[in-house]
């Protein structure tokens, strides 16, 4: 494995336009004070230190320039630099604050070998205005240690790893203190320890550094910080577009580019943002979510087309941009045993499309609720399209669910359709029992009446208390579910 580490000792200040000869420090809020977080070599030479409070730095050096850290801007620049380094390999990782790691195992030969890659990387970064040093090793930590050492003494011969201080391997504070306690200050000293004692005393991290110190090559990629620039494909339309068809045509090309980039990064899109720049200068933003992560061009186009069909442009569009707002790694798709193989569209995609078009409240997975009020006996659950297999008969039934089912079985039956709002009903009764009801077809005689079933509750809520006597009335038309409350009769549903 060939790992190249690129060390940029002054990146944080160089991106702001400062050079090594300037007396400048970046500050950030940290441990309840404004402290120095990045320093130029000149500032270090003047006696300022990382972590020093700004007031102390000012007292020591009144002429030092203190600039607040632009966290967001720094992040964007770091990601942009990582994107630039992808020219040499797809596997680029950000390490700590000022290092990048490139896996050039498979790509070095394309550029003429490891040395040639190092030279080209350094030249590219110099063109961007950055001072850097590179080192290639079999292990990422070794390469990082060597790159850092090279930056301190660029013209000197690279020392052996064994002669470097233990801090060059970036141990955690806890491990560093543990090693210092037993007098381990150099990498070479660590390599001479007994393997069993390292494992027992310093844990997994200690074992890792121990093996690096002994020159072992690791094939695992250390993801200290995995960040990438969001995928964004802008497209100039070459004129103001008023109709949807040419816009969809342009979108097709943009989506194809987005899918190519997703493929290169081994990612799947979950949510897209479409930004339409209008003639007036305003930006119309539309977000679209897919049901199942995908990088299939046709699937994304189908989702977008369905969403755009109902869209009305406020003004002609001059530019558009497609951005992947949320993505996931490509873990493959495991179809369910119950998936219809002949389905043209996966269920999660269908649900996402319908939710987008109809609204979340229109797609429901009903869940029963323990409530005396019939209207409150169920609620909307969240639909996610996940497969839920039917419970096989041999599975042990949960005792709580078994008790609930028993109670549900004992409860009076419930109708299959219930009106959203109970309808006032004309009823002729005798001795409290309904005899005739007036429906749309006129008066109908009650053939049989089952009830009353008293349902009451929520008396503590002034406007929500209810006290109803429910009846199931068999009529010529069918069986109606009615209730009597406060001297009035209401039709509530049908046993349809």
């Amino acid at each position: 494995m060939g790992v190249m580490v690129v060390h940029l000792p002054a990146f944080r200040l160089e991106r702001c336009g400062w050079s090594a000869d300037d007396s400048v420090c970046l500050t950030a809020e940290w441990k309840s004070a404004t402290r120095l977080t990045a320093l130029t070599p000149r500032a270090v030479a003047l006696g300022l230190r990382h972590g020093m409070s700004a007031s102390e730095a000012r007292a020591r050096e009144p002429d030092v320039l203190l600039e607040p850290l632009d966290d967001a801007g720094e992040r964007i620049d770091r990601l942009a630099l990582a994107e630039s380094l992808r020219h040499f390999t797809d596997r680029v990782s950000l390490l700590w604050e000022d290092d990048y790691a490139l896996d050039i195992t498979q790509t070095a030969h394309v550029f003429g070998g490891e040395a040639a890659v190092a030279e080209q990387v350094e030249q590219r970064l110099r063109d961007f205005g950055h001072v850097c040093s590179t080192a290639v090793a079999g292990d990422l930590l070794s390469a990082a240690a060597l790159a850092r050492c090279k930056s301190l003494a660029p013209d000197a011969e690279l020392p052996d790893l064994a002669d470097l201080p233990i801090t060059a391997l970036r141990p955690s504070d806890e491990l560093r203190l543990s090693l210092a306690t037993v007098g381990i200050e150099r990498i070479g000293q660590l390599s001479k320890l007994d393997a069993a004692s390292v494992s027992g005393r310093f844990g997994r991290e200690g074992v890792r550094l121990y093996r690096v110190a002994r020159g072992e090559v690791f094939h695992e990629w250390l993801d200290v910080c995995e960040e990438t620039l969001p995928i964004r494909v802008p497209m100039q339309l070459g004129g103001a577009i008023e109709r949807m068809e040419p816009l969809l045509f342009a979108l097709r090309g943009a989506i194809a580019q987005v899918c190519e980039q997703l493929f290169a990064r081994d990612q799947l899109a979950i949510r897209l943002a479409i930004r339409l720049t209008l003639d007036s200068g305003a930006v119309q933003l539309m977000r679209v979510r897919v049901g199942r992560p995908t990088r299939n061009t046709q699937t994304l186009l189908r989702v977008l087309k369905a969403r755009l069909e109902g869209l009305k442009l406020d003004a002609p569009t001059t530019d558009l941009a497609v951005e992947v707002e949320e993505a996931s790694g490509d873990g493959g798709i495991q179809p369910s045993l119950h998936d219809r193989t002949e389905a043209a569209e996966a269920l999660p995609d269908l649900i996402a499309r319908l939710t987008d078009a109809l609204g979340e409240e229109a797609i429901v997975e009903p869940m029963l609720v323990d409530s005396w009020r019939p209207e409150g006996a169920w609620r909307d659950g969240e639909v996610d399209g996940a497969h839920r297999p039917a419970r096989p008969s041999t599975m042990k039934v949960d005792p709580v669910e078994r008790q609930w089912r028993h109670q549900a079985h004992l409860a009076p039956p419930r109708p299959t359709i219930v009106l959203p709002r109970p309808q006032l009903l004309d009823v002729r009764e005798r001795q409290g029992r309904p005899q005739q009801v007036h429906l749309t077809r006129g008066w109908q005689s009650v053939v049989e009446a089952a009830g009353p079933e008293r349902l009451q509750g929520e008396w503590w809520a002034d406007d929500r208390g209810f006290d109803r006597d429910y009846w199931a009335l068999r009529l010529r038309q069918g069986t109606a579910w009615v209730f009597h409350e406060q001297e009035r009769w209401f039709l509530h549903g049908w046993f349809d």
Partner: protein
Amino acid sequence: MFSMEEAISEALSIDALRARIHELEGVRVVSRRIPSGSVAFDALVDGLPRPGIVELCGPPGAGTTSLALDLVRHQPAAAWVDFERWLYPPGIAGAGVDLRRLLLLRPAADRGIWAVEQVLRAGCFSLVVVSEPPPLRRAGHRWARAAEAGGCTLLVCRGRSHRDLPADMRLQLDGHRVAVARNRGGSLGRSADLPERPEGIDPWV
């Protein structure tokens, strides 16, 4: 008013005409009967047409929902588009339907017709039930093509039959008796009592 013989003759002529059109267009659609899982229903009409459209007509209380639920119960998964928002989940759970395997849609009327077409065309469900849709006009034929594309059965439950739906099968329910008003493939004119309903939804059991 057509007589029974005239109605059968007309149905056969229209079917023959349709088949001829498909032949000319090069489209050969094979509709087959699938056992519904309900013994009484299959005995009456020889199963569900797939792909195809079944229309259940009857006033509230006639039992259209129970019959539809009986069919839903025997499917691995189904979708129900409830335009009127009348379907009562505690009642349908009492009918033995696993709510986790039922996707319930409650769209507004103006987008609901489009939503039904999408669900049919996607082919994710073997059975799609639509209750009390608004007037369809030409949408009925789009639904038929979508059901064909998705390879599924569309079951439409409504108070009265409409000619806007090209149904393969039309069942009329009245007073807990179901009569076959139309059935491509036979059993026209047959009738039977509705299948027994589970205790959970029948107060008279």
